[in-house]
């Protein structure tokens, strides 16, 4: 993953890299936006933007956090532009549930509902950690937070999910 991305070979490698990362970028965008159509728009625009500024990406190894940053910015930009109305979470879950239920069992659906209901401050670091595999330090850099703040949010996010899903066992506050 540390191949340089310059020249014709680099361009081909860049396309391949984007395509490999696209599923995760889409999922990240989906959990940011909680809306499939917005997620598709965000990823599409983010990848085009990435292509235009690919020279600022030194090597393939740095692509993931770089693309995540672009997706986050693009989401913020789109959100700002469209000024989405706030949607109650039950309505949101209902509107997305048919698509999200595809090929998913009931348990997975229950967890999805619980994650959709998390506040943005808790959901985003959790997605970056569990889905994208970022360390707490990398999440702190991505979100512009201290590492301690990220740890607290992750701890609370899991506690909220445990409560929502009825997971028993000790909790520390």
């Amino acid at each position: 993953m540390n191949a340089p991305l310059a020249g014709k070979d680099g361009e081909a490698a860049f396309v391949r890299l984007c395509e490999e990362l696209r599923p995760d970028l889409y999922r990240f965008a989906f959990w940011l936006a909680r809306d499939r159509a917005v997620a598709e728009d965000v990823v599409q625009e983010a990848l085009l933007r990435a292509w235009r500024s690919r020279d600022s990406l030194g090597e393939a190894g740095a692509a993931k956090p770089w693309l995540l940053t672009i997706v986050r910015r693009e989401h913020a930009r789109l959100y700002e532009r469209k000024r989405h109305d706030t949607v109650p979470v039950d309505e949101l879950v209902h509107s997305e549930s048919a698509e999200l239920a595809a090929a998913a069992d009931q348990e997975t659906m229950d967890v999805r509902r619980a994650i959709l209901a998390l506040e943005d401050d808790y959901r985003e670091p959790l997605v970056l950690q569990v889905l994208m595999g970022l360390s707490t330090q990398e999440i702190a850099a991505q979100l512009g937070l201290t590492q301690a703040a990220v740890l607290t949010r992750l701890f609370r996010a899991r506690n909220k999910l445990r409560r929502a899903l009825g997971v028993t066992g000790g909790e520390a506050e």
Partner: protein
Amino acid sequence: MTMDCLQFRRSAGADPQRLDDAARAHAGTCPPCAAHLRELRSLDARILAALEVPVPGADGAAGGSSATVLGVERRRWLALAASIVAGVLVGTLLWVAGPQNSLARDLVDHLGHEPEALVVTGRPEDAEVLDAVLERAGIRLRPEVGTVSYANSCEFRGHDVPHLVVQTGDGPVTVMVLRHERPARPVRFREGGHTGRIVPVGPGSVAVIGEAGVDLEQVTSAVTEAVEWL
């Protein structure tokens, strides 16, 4: 630095996959906290499964978008790629499987080489054979993992790796310890009638593969905790 139960639970609750030395040491001496850690890791596996929503345009995924939207997106990608590498066959660039997918495919292909290993049995593998396989790989396996009914050193992607079969309540499950493969995060896959998990552990990863429909969460958690890298 030692850690008490409260500190452990705060630390593990924030990042159950990456414990520091003090937390690991605490879990090793405190059964309730070790059980709490297993529960957190099991929850993480459920969270990961839930986060992996269907991706429009991905092979095998329930698309979720209309054909029109999908078509537009594919066309835009094709246009983008065409502008990037003129004269190159775009299709071969766009739909190359990711490295994790090909690892899953290689793992499932490998199972086909040793079908005799996957039998339901209560008989454990000869201890000397198992020890030799583990020693060759530079790992130890704590006994909590359960009955290991088969052990072999197999060549996989140019390296000798331990190929084990662990008996579970749902039947035999294949475990391969991959020192030379480390995905950035835990991976779930379905491939060729099998379901699997690849979990980064230590310097490498552990792959656990069962028949489609087998619940791998418990055995994956048990195996990842039982592996010690020497």
